[in-house]
C-alpha cells in the first residue's frame, strides 16, 4: 500500500483503475484508497436554482452525514460549494471565507468526522459543465499542505476522469449537446431574460417570423416542447447563464 506521505507523481496505475471503475462511486473509492484519504467527493454541475437542477453528488462520506447535510440544507451555505463552483484553480479549504451561516455546518462537520483538512479541484469542460472534486484527511496542516502540493497535478488529472464518468452517469452516455448557432444562443438568452418574439425581433433587427423559426429550431434541437423547457435545459448544460 502507498504511504500517505509518499509522492504519487507518476500515477498511471491509479488513473487506469479510476478509468476502468464501473461507477463514480467505485472511482472515488479507488482514489480514496490509493492516497489513504479520509473522504472523497464528486459534486457535478451545481446550479444556483436547485429547481432547475438537483445536485449530483457521489461521496465516501457516511450516509448519516449526507442525510444531515441534505436535511439541514447545508448546500446553500457550504463555502466549499458556493465558492468552489466559481473558482477555476484548486484550493485548500483554509482559503475559504466562512460566513456566520456556515458556522453550524462546520461544527456539525467536525462532529460527523468529515476530516480536519480539505482540498478541492474545480473542473469545467467544453460544454461548460462544472464539477467539484473534494478530498479530506485527518492530519496536521503542514503535512496536508505538503501532500496537496506534491499531488496536486495527479488530483487534477484524476478529477478530469471522474468528471467525465459523472457526466455520463448524470446525463446519459450520449452527451453531445446539440450545436446551437450564435444567433440561436442570443435568442435563447433573450427568452431567459423574459423577452417575447416581437421584442427579440426588434433587438436583433429580424422579422418576427425569423425569430419564431430560430425559437422553433432551438426547441426541435433540444427536444423540448416549450421555450421554458428549452431554457432550463440550456442552463443545465451551461449553454446560457442562469
Amino acid at each position: 500500500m502507498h504511504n500517505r506521505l509518499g509522492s504519487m507523481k507518476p500515477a498511471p496505475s491509479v488513473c487506469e483503475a479510476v478509468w476502468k471503475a464501473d461507477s463514480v462511486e467505485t472511482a472515488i473509492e479507488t482514489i480514496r484508497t490509493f492516497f489513504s484519504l479520509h473522504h472523497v467527493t464528486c459534486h457535478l454541475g451545481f446550479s444556483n436554482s436547485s429547481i432547475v437542477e438537483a445536485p449530483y453528488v457521489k461521496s465516501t462520506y457516511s450516509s448519516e452525514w449526507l442525510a444531515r447535510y441534505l436535511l439541514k440544507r447545508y448546500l446553500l451555505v457550504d463555502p466549499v460549494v458556493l465558492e468552489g463552483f466559481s473558482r477555476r484553480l484548486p484550493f485548500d479549504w483554509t482559503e475559504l471565507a466562512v460566513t456566520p451561516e456556515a458556522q453550524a455546518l462546520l461544527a456539525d462537520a467536525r462532529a460527523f468526522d468529515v476530516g480536519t483538512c480539505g482540498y478541492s479541484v474545480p473542473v469545467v469542460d467544453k460544454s461548460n459543465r462544472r464539477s467539484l472534486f473534494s478530498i479530506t484527511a485527518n492530519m496536521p496542516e503542514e503535512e496536508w499542505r505538503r501532500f496537496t502540493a506534491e499531488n496536486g497535478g495527479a488530483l487534477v488529472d484524476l478529477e478530469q476522469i471522474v468528471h467525465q464518468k459523472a457526466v455520463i452517469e448524470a446525463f446519459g452516455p450520449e452527451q453531445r449537446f446539440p450545436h446551437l448557432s450564435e444567433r440561436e444562443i442570443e435568442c435563447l438568452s433573450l427568452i431567459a431574460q423574459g423577452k417575447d418574439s416581437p421584442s427579440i425581433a426588434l433587438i436583433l433587427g429580424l422579422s418576427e417570423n425569423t425569430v419564431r423559426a430560430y425559437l422553433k429550431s432551438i426547441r426541435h434541437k433540444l427536444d423540448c416542447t416549450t421555450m421554458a423547457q428549452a431554457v432550463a435545459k440550456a442552463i443545465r448544460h451551461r449553454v446560457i447563464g442562469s
Partner: protein
Amino acid sequence: MFTTIKEVNYAENEVVLAEMFRLRKRVFHDVLGWDVPVKGDQERDFYGSLGPVYLVWCDPELQVLYASLRLMPTTGPTLLSDVFSDTMPNAAAFSAPGIWEATRSCVDVESLARDFPSLSPGKAFGLLLLATVECCLAHGIETVVANYEPRVKRIYERSSAIFDEVGRADGYGKFPVCCGAFEISERAVSRMRERLGFSEPVFTPYSATPRQLAA
C-alpha cells in the same frame, strides 16, 4: 404552370427532370462557377438521392422547363446546414418541422425568352418565389430558408417577399452566396401576388397529365 414533382412522380417525369439537371449544370457550374458535381451535361448531387421535392415551372404537358428549385425539410440532412455551417452558421442553424430549405433555384432564360418574350428574368425569379410561397403555405410550412445571389435579393425585395437575410459568404463562385429566411403566410402570398399582378394562385398542385396517364 408551377407544380411540384415528388419522389413518387420522378419516373413519369424523367424528361423534365433531366432538363432540370441540365439547366442546373448550365447555371451553377457554367455561369456561377460553383463547385458542384457534374455528370455529363447534368448537375446532380448527393441531396438528389434523398427524395427531395422539385418545384418546377413547365408547360402544361410537363415537357418544357422554365425554372426549378429543390425543397427539403430541415429536420433531415440539408445542403445549407452541411455546406454553410462554418461560413453562415446562423443560416445553417434552422432545423425544425415547418421549416424547409429551398436550394438550386434557377430560371432558363432561353426557354423563357422563346415562350414568354415579354417576361423579364427578374420577374421570372419573383414568380418562382411566389409559387414556392404558395406551395409551402398549402403544405403547412412556416419558413423557407433559401440561398440566392446578391442580384436576386433585389428581385425578391421588389417582389414584396417578406424575408431576412441571415447569412452571406464569399468563396463559392463568381458572386457571394446569400441565405434568407422567408416568411410563408397568407400575408406574404397576398403581398407578392399584388406586387406581381396576380389575383389567382400561380401554383397548381401536381396531377398526372392526360398524356402521362395514357402512357
